[in-house]
């Protein structure tokens, strides 16, 4: 009862309170989840790396229980940690860890991006900025191709019963084929028809993953006007071109942006998959592969995080574009 007057107090306090609450309300849960993930990650580093740490300690002459690597194979990581408490911290300082610490990954990421950029070597072969740029370029072309195909396909499906019956099943089947199996074939085939380099096949693989969510979303969006809205246009004897531009297309805009966000993430995954098959030396996918071949887990992790950050940035950009567009259309509140 005593709280009631406070909630009805008008004026700037309430507004400020609401603004504060919504900001905190938005970021606090995210920070909590992040902290939990980082915590679990840190905790996992010790059991993951303890064998490496003990092997290394043994080589440098420390006493380890049990004494030989063979004997240690028989013992669980938990026992090893319990029996060698002094050596556990070494798990966190491995050069080639099974699982690097978040700090190590952040360090590697910084060393291959910001630090190199400060030295003016952002576009060197060893810089992740260079590789991210290569991946981003292919993703962009794949996204453009994929969305164009997706939107065109959706229009054809909505306006033609025949296309609806013939194209839709193939679109669905196309997504059941594992892209990792298809990617090398696309690369080989495009080399066969004389396409130089990886750019085009990568964009095709990327478009292959990207077009589907756009197609499905746009079909749904273009079909979203109800019979009442279509009847209204019929009373004006509107042509189907007019009902497309004046009703179906604007109705589909919210669906379009939802699909574009999924589509760009899919396009990025497609590009990275296209960079994995042997032979690629540029792009984040190639960095992941090379890291694997040369046994440099830090490079893999840094490339993975670079890819995740790139995806986050792209989706955020689309989100901003969505808000701005819907607001301009009077639909964002």
């Amino acid at each position, binding site marked *: 009862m005593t709280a009631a007057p406070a909630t009805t107090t008008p004026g700037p306090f309430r507004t400020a309170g609401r603004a504060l609450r919504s900001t905190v309300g938005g970021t606090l849960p995210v920070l909590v989840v992040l902290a939990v993930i980082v915590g679990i990650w840190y905790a996992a580093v010790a059991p993951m790396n303890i064998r490496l740490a003990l092997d290394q300690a043994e080589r440098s002459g420390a006493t380890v229980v049990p004494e030989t690597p063979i004997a240690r194979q028989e013992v669980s990581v938990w026992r090893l940690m319990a029996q060698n408490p002094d050596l556990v911290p070494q798990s966190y300082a491995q050069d080639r860890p099974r699982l690097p610490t978040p700090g190590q990954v952040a360090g590697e990421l910084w060393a291959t991006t910001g630090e190199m950029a400060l030295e003016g070597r952002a576009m060197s072969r060893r810089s992740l900025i260079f590789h991210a740029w290569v991946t981003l370029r292919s993703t962009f072309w794949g996204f453009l191709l994929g969305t164009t195909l997706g939107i065109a396909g959706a229009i054809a499906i909505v306006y033609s019963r025949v296309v609806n019956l013939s194209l839709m099943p193939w679109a669905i089947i196309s997504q059941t084929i594992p892209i990792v199996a298809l990617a090398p074939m696309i690369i080989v085939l495009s080399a066969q028809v004389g396409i130089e380099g990886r750019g085009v096949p990568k964009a095709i693989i990327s478009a292959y993953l990207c077009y589907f969510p756009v197609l499905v979303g746009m079909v749904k969006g273009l079909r979203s006007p109800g019979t009442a809205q279509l009847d209204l246009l019929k009373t*004006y004897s509107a042509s189907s071109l007019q009902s497309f531009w*004046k009703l179906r297309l604007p109705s589909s805009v919210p669906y379009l942006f939802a699909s574009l966000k999924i589509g760009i993430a899919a396009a990025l995954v497609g590009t990275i998959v296209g960079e994995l098959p042997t032979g690629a030396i540029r792009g984040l996918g190639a960095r992941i592969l090379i890291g694997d071949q040369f046994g440099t887990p830090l490079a893999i992790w840094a490339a993975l995080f670079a890819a995740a950050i790139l995806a986050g940035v792209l989706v955020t950009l689309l989100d901003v574009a969505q808000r701005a567009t819907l607001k301009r259309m009077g*639909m964002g509140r």
Partner: protein
Amino acid sequence: MTATPVIEAKNLDLTFQTADAPVHALRDVSLSIGKGEFVSFIGPSGCGKTTFLRCIAGLEEPTGGTLTVNGMSPDAARRARAYGYVFQAAGLYPWRTIGKNVALPLEIMGYSKQEQKERVDRTLDLVDLGGFASKFPWQLSGGMQQRASIARALAFDANILLMDEPFGALDEIVRDRLNEELLSLWARTGKTVGFVTHSIPEAVYLSTRIVVMSPRPGRITDVIESPLPAERPLDIRDSREFIEVAHRVRDGLRAGMEEDA
């Protein structure tokens, strides 16, 4: 009475073929509506009021009988832009401002930009929404949205206005206001109006003629000529004549129901 009727239905029949049983939505409906009349259709849910209006609009194809609008087939009349249709839900496009919503039929019908602007201004004034052209639908109340949808139906030069329970979702006070405005609008424009409603007072207050319908199958059970004068202030609803007409409508509705049971 010698003038050719604007809307003429003779022995109209419509049966919907549905998945289970066929639905006999209209049976033997004959009605002639003259120029400048205000005709209300009243009856319980499912008696075919909407279906009849949609037939007139060429949105539904009768399965029997003849129907002409302005002496043409309903389809031809629709293509000739003979009528404006107001649906139960305002159905404004959320991405268009009120002015742009009213301009929608004008854009489709190819009016010039200049003419569009003039007509939007004029019709918005007509429904008392003068200053709201640049607002978005969500910024308006339900009653204002419905007024905008009426403006949209008035923006082009159709001589017929078809309205399907346009005020059904509004509260009574707003409804009274809109009824009054609709009457004065009708008096000023001289349009022929077909108006579907659930409400007896609304039908009696607005109409020159009231068509009572009853369901299963949908048919006309009574047609009542209103003795009320053209000039109708809201308090006419307390007059003896008004109450008598309302009684007759109620009796007609009841008779239809009993016959049904």
